[in-house]
Structures are given as C-alpha cells and as structure tokens.
C-alpha cells in the first residue's frame, strides 16, 4: 500500500471515531456550535483527503454530509434525530468501505448504489432532493476518454475484447499505461520492475521485449531494453504519485469500451502501416506554466480591484506579480511601485503575454477536476462484506504484532535467564567451583533486574484505557434503546483505567452481551417504570476500576432486577437443579444460576440478545481470560454484573505442585492456602475425603486419581493439601509436594493435546521442562466423574 493511502486510512480511523462521538453528543445538545463544527470539520477533511484518491463515491457522500452539516452550522437547519441517523448511517457505510479499501485498495463495487440513497436522504433537508444529488453527480458523468494508442495491441486482442465487453456492461473505464524506461535508467537508481509491481489495482501487465536482442558482442547487461504496458484501476492521482520520478517515460490513457473497440476495429487496417508514435498526454509544460502565471496575475489584478491591500499584502502581491511575469518571459522591476504602478504593470503583462490558455479561469484546475470525476471500474463480483471491520491501523501506532513479538521475546529471555540458576547449581555440584557458581548468580541477579524492567516496559506499551472497550456503547445503547422504545441514559465511569490490550479486546464481546441483556430484559419500558414509581429514564452504568493486579468492570442497570424464585423455577423446569436445590438455594445462589449453560430467563427469544448464547457464554469467555463474573440483583431495583479480569494476560503467576513425580501449575489467583494435614485429621463424609479447617468442612480431591495417575499417598505422612477457590467454592487438592511460584507465559495447548480440557496451557520453565497448567474447573469435573 502506498504511504499516502496508509496515512489516509489511519487518519480516517481517527476521524470516524470523532464523528460518531460528536454526532451522539450533538443529539443531546443539538445547539452546540462547537460540536457541529467538529463534526463538520471531520466530514470536510474526509472530503478533501478522499479527493487525492480515486474514490468519487466517498467524495460525493462526504460532500453531501458536509453540506448538511454546513447548513446546520450556518443556522439554516435544525438538526433532528432523523438527520443524525442518516449521518451515522453515512459514516457507517464509509467505515465499511474503508475496511474494504484496507484490504483491496479500492472501494467495493456496490459503493455507488449504496451511496445513492443516502446522498438523497442527506440532501433532502436542504430542499435538494434527488435532483440536487444528480446535479452533484454531474461532473462524474463527464469522463475524459483518450484516443486509443497503438500500443494497446500489446495487451492481446482476446483480452481486449473481453475487457471491452466488461467495460461496456459496467459503463466504466480503465486506465492504460505504457512505461518505456530509459536505456540507462539503472544508473539513476530507477527500478522499473519494482515500480510496475507497485501499481495498485493492476489488471493486466505485459512485459515487452525488444524486437531484436543485440548480438552477444554488443549486448550491454546494464542497459534496460524492456518496456511495460499495463491496465489498472488505479486513479490518475495514484499513478501520478507512483511515477513521479519518471513522468517523461510514462504515457497514461483512460479508455472506455468504445475506445477499445475503435482500437480493435482499426487494428487490422494499420497492421502493415509503420507504427506512429501517438503521445497519449502531450506535455505542454510551457503552456501550463503560462496558464498558472496568468492565474497569479489575474488574482493580483482582482485583489487590487476589490480591496485595499496593506503594506505587506501589497509587497507580497508585487512579488508574486514579478515572479509570474518572469515565468512569462517578461522581467519586471517593480521595486517601490505603488498600487497603480503594479496594476498598470499587470495589465501590461496580461496584454503582452502570449494568449495561451487564456480560457482557463484562475483557481480552477481542469485536469484534476476531470481526474476526480473519473470513476473506478467496479469489480466484477461484489465483495462488500467487510462492514464493521477495522479501518487502517489501530490506535497503537505500532503494529500490534510487533508488540506481541516483543512480548514473546521477553518470555524467552526470562526462560533463558532462569537457565542461569541451573548453570550455577551445576557449576557448584558438577565442577566443584563455588566461586564460579557465585559469579553466575551475580550475573543472574543483574540480568534478572533488566529482564523484569524490560517486561514491565513492554507490558506498559500494551496497556490501553478501558475507554477503548467502552467507546462502542453510546452508539449501541442509543440504537437499541430506540428500537426497544425505551429511554436510557448511559453513564460511563473510570474509562481511564488501564488494562492489557488483550484483556481490553477480549472484554468487548462479554460487555456487549451484558449491555444487550440489560437493555433487553433488565430495563423496563418507560410506562412500566413510571407505574413502578421509578424515573421514566433508565440508567445504565459501565464502570471500571483498578483493583490491585485486576480490573473490575461493572455493568449495572436500575431495571426490574432478577427474580430469584422465577430463576429457580426455570432452572428446575429445565432440569438444571434438583428438587432439594429448589428448596435450599439462597437468593444469591439462585441468581448465579443464570450463568448455567442452557439457561435463559427471557420467555421469548429476542433478536437483540441473540439466540442460543446466554450468560454462560459470558462466564466462559471471562474465565478463559482468567477472570470471574458475578451478578448481584435486587428485585425491582436493578442488577449489577461484575467482571473481574487480570490486568494483563501476558504473564501468569502459577503455583507449582507435583504429584507422582510430575509437576503441574495452578494459577495463583485460585490458590487460597497451602496446608499440611496430619493423616489422622483427614475425615470422610459420604465417600468424600474432607478436611476441617477453622470450623469449615472442605472437600479434598485426590489430584492423582482425578488425572488417573498411578500414585498413592504413604499412609503415615502428612497430607499436602492445596486449598483453592473455584466458582466461589473451597476445594482441597491432595498433592505430593508444593514447589515455588513462578511467572510464566502461558501458551495454549496445541496439536494432539488441544482437546485436553483439563489443561489450560503449557509454559516453559527455566530448566527447559514443560509445565502443564491445570484448568481446575475441568479437573474438578473429572474428579466428580471418577468418584
């Protein structure tokens, strides 16, 4: 992708974000001139920048949006929510287009049709209606069709016939380019092949060999004898930019079906005739320079006619007149000249200078306007399904993959660093050198400090504010609440809280789900609310706060709340709980049932919350991140769902335990404590080993049995029990031995083990051993089955 387009996409991404934000705020404060101005400017910048590329639909659409906003800005129109809808729709469409541009470097084929309706809508409040939209499209219909050059034949008759047919059906045009590199171009560091390969939207490329190669004695391998003919959908501006170093070696023509057919028809007749060099775009540099110079003079003349230039203004004007006159070959000396003298000089030059290009009005650039008007050829098959995709680069101005790579390297550095401790031990034990061992340990300490700092630095780069995850919700809440006919005020708090980018990204879907649930099921209609004595406008709060090495995100509403009795009954009907549980479950436990797979309280499945995925999906994805989710609800006054997530997923702290000589890792977050229990104090209740700790009965699971490992505890020894908390329940794990805690970079299970759900991943230890990290929830499930 050329740097200009990349820059445009990055800028567009920022602009789209500020437009969405601005429009939503505007709807609430319709009169705010600052906001109108901001959105207007974004649309304006879009229009201006899009003109550099061959995106006429984009230019037209942003133009329509800009005109509407300009009318609002000028007080000629009052912004209503219908207009905001149209504007949002327009920018959504643009977002989709740009996602397509990011991958294909051109607008989708359907762009023209997609835009037409919106343009009409946007123009309607201006009293324009469809006529105005058509008028606006006026210049686009005027295309400059060049005479077909003879070198078109290089592309092959068959291809030309096919292309002409296709151009005819789509009423579009294609640009054809011939590039004749100079013989000695290599000495000027030109790379013709590289240049040709960079042509965007390349349709066909033909490399032309010389008619006759020189004999071997005369052959000069440093001379370029090849030339190129190609067909492309690229805009004139892009080609201009690409071939800016070699403009004199390039000829570009824009042709439609008729022109190609003319060429095909004429081909036979001219076959025998000597090939005439038909310069496609004859460059009259002098004439163009003269036109520009005359434009400067005309401007100066006009300035003197309408205004009273101040000292500096007159000085500058005089300077420009001298420059322009010089360019026209009429040197002037206007030192110290006054208005009248300058005016007379201008009239003199304008009268004397050659009348070349006099028809061109100042300030207008016909070739560029025509370039702008040219439309790109629509692609044969529409692939416009990129809507909602990412546009250009992300907020992180560094490619994310690079940061990820850096993180991986930090992990590898840690592993390599840990290897030094084993080396130190070996130095002492195997080679008997305590001094060497100590020096290695010193080195290790230094390296360790640097590695830790490096890790912290890289983690810091990956930190993003929660506002990135929250930013989509104003729009989502607005659209959904309108569809549901509910009035909802969205409040966000703690957007500045930072978390790792992976956490932020992974948070998106669960949050959307929770917010939709609140809107759909939790929050009542205004009528119901008023009847219940609540304010008609509901309140939905998204709040984030840092809590040690975790971040808490809460979604709360002041809706109808969850009815624990109804939840229990539903769960019982669906066979999720037993009859005893129906009786014994507390309200808190009942509310937690909504996270069970297969549970859904809504009597009708609405299209908002989606089908088949419920809160269990939320819990599963949050737990996958190493977090937890809990729900508190007060019947009649609202529900709060709290997500607790690690600040960073890159490094996991695990406790290492061993059983049967095999080491396993257990996430430290889940560990409550480690205890050694004398064999005699182990109890047994209903076939279940238990241990009583501080008056609480904790079930104990034999890890070896759960994993079907051959190991049994020596009867006499104290039992090593690791107490963990899973789903709010305390469970003891019987293990052989406790080891230290280590920071590891968790890698997902791959290959044959990918389906082994009892492990959440693997990590490489410093001594080169692979540590399996347990997924305790699954392990407990296995234990229950084994028992």
């Amino acid at each position, binding site marked *: 992708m050329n*740097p*200009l387009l990349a*820059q*445009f996409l*990055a*800028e567009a991404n920022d602009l789209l974000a500020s437009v969405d934000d601005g429009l939503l705020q505007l709807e609430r404060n319709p009169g705010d001139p600052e906001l109108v101005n901001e959105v207007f*400017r974004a649309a*304006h*910048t879009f*229009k*201006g*920048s899009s*003109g*550099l590329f061959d995106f006429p639909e984009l230019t037209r659409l942003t133009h329509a949006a800009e005109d509407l906003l300009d009318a609002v800005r000028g007080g000629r129109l009052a912004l209503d929510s219908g207009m905001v809808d149209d504007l949002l729709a327009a920018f959504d469409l643009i977002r989709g287009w740009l996602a397509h541009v990011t991958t294909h470097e051109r607008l989708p084929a359907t762009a023209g049709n997609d835009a037409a309706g919106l343009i009409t809508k946007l123009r309607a409040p201006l009293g324009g209606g469809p006529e105005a939209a058509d008028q606006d499209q006026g210049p686009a219909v005027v295309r400059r069709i060049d005479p077909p050059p003879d070198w078109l034949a290089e592309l092959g008759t068959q291809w030309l016939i096919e292309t002409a047919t296709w151009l005819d059906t789509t009423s579009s045009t294609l640009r054809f380019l011939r590039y004749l590199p100079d013989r000695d171009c290599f000495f000027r560091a030109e790379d013709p092949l590289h240049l040709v390969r960079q042509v965007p939207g390349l349709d066909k490329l033909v490399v032309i060999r010389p008619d006759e190669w020189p004999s071997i004695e005369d052959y000069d391998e440093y001379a370029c004898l090849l030339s190129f003919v190609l067909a492309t959908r690229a805009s004139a*501006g892009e080609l*201009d*930019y690409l071939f*800016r*170093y070699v*403009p004199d070696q390039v000829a570009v023509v824009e042709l439609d079906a008729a022109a190609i057919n003319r060429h095909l028809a004429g081909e036979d007749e001219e076959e025998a005739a000597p090939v005439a060099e038909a310069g496609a775009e004859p460059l009259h540099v002098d004439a*163009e*320079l003269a036109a*520009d*110079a005359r*434009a*400067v003079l005309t*401007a*100066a003349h*006009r*300035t003197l006619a*309408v*205004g009273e*230039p*101040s000292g*500096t*203004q007159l*000085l*500058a*004007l*005089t*300077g*420009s007149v*001298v*420059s*322009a*006159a*010089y*360019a026209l070959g009429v*040197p*002037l*000396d206007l*030192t110290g000249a006054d208005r009248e003298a300058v005016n007379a000089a201008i009239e003199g030059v304008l009268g004397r200078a050659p009348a070349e290009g006099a028809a061109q009005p*100042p*300030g*207008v*650039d016909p*070739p*560029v*306007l025509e370039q*702008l008007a040219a439309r790109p050829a629509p692609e044969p098959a529409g692939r416009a399904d990129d809507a909602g995709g990412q546009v250009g680069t992300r907020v992180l101005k560094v490619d994310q993959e690079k940061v990820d790579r850096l993180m991986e390297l930090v992990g590898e550095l840690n592993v390599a660093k840990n290897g030094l401790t084993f080396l130190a031990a070996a130095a002492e034990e195997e080679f008997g050198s305590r001094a060497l061992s100590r020096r290695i340990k010193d080195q290790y300490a230094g390296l360790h400090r640097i590695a830790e700092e490096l890790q912290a630095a890289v983690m810091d780069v990956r930190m993003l504010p929660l506002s990135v995850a929250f930013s989509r919700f104003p729009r989502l809440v607005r659209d959904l609440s309108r569809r549901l006919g509910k009035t909802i005020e969205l409040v966000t708090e703690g957007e500045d809280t930072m978390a790792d980018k992976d956490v932020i990204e992974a948070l998106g879907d669960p949050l959307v789900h929770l917010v939709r649930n609140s809107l759909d099921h939790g929050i009542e209609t205004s009528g119901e609310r008023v009847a219940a004595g609540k304010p008609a406008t509901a309140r939905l709060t998204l709040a984030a706060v840092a809590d040690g090495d975790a971040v808490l995100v809460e979604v709360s509403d002041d809706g109808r709340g969850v009815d624990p009795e109804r939840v229990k009954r539903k769960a019982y009907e669906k066979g999720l709980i037993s009859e005893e549980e129906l009786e014994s479950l507390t309200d808190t436990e009942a509310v937690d049932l909504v996270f069970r797979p297969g549970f859904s309280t809504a009597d009708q499945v609405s299209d908002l919350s989606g089908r088949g995925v419920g809160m269990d999906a939320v819990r599963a994805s949050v737990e996958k991140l190493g977090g937890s989710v809990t729900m508190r609800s007060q019947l009649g006054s609202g529900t709060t769902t709290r997500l607790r997530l690690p600040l960073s997923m890159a490094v996991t702290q695990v406790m290492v335990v061993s059983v049967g000589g095999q080491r396993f890792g257990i996430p430290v977050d889940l560990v409550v404590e480690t205890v050694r229990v004398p064999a005699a104090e182990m109890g047994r209740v209903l076939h279940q080993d238990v241990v009583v700790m501080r008056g609480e009965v904790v079930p104990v699971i034999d890890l070896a049995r759960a994993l079907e490992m051959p190991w049994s505890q020596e009867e006499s020894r104290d039992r090593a029990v690791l107490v963990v908390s899973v789903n709010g329940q305390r469970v003891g794990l019987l293990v052989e031995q406790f080891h230290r805690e280590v920071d590891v970079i968790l890698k997902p299970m791959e290959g044959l083990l990918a389906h082994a759900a009892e492990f959440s991943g693997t990590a490489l230890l410093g001594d080169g051993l692979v540590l399996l990290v347990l997924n305790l929830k699954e392990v407990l499930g296995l234990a229950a089955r084994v028992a």
Partner: protein
Amino acid sequence: MTRVLVVDDAATVRLYHTSLLREAGFEVAEAANGLEAVEAAMIDSYDLFVVDVNMPKMNGYTCVETLRSETVGTAAPVLMISTEDRPGDADRAYQAGANLYLVKPVSAERLVRVATMLTTGKGPDA
C-alpha cells in the same frame, strides 16, 4: 534552499503536498493549523506558504491575514489550496493576502510548477 511551510489539518493532504515538494528539492516544514503556522512564521522565515482554508483553531483566511499583518509581516508568496469551490472564496483569499488560490486536489506537477514559479524570478531586490 527554498523553504516552504505546508499548513493543513488533514495529515494525508499534508503528507501529499510535503512529499511532492520535498522531492522537487524544497525544504519543507509542516503546520497542522493556522495558529501553528503563525507561530512557525514568527520563529523562522519561509519563502513560500502553502495554506489550507478550513482548519481548526485558526482558519486559512485568518492565518494569511495574520502572516501579512504587522505581527508577523512576511511578504513571502502564499498559495492557498482549498476544498471549497464557491464563488467568493477566492476573493476572500486574495483580500487576506494570498497570491494564488487553487482547488484541491492539485496535481503533482502543478503544485511543484506553481511553487517553483512563485519562489523564483523576483529579481535582485525582492
């Protein structure tokens, strides 16, 4: 070397103009709005200003007026390049003190041609 200040709030347009002018051998500095341009002009001197019209903080017209005012007082040529093509816009630019008003997008050759023309041939005194 001939020094140019490119003033535009749109980063893409700025990159376009800047790279074209740099390749043509100009020394180019950038400013993202009128205010930045005025500040730059007070610190350094430039041989040419390429100014956009619609910009935040200070628009192009005010920027050019300020460049020509006693505060800054530069008589260097000003080329205004705007997206607007409405009657009266060019006049406003000329009254502010611009020397040429063009409508975006300006072709690569034309930008370089006009920039070169406006910065040469002034004779020994200018």
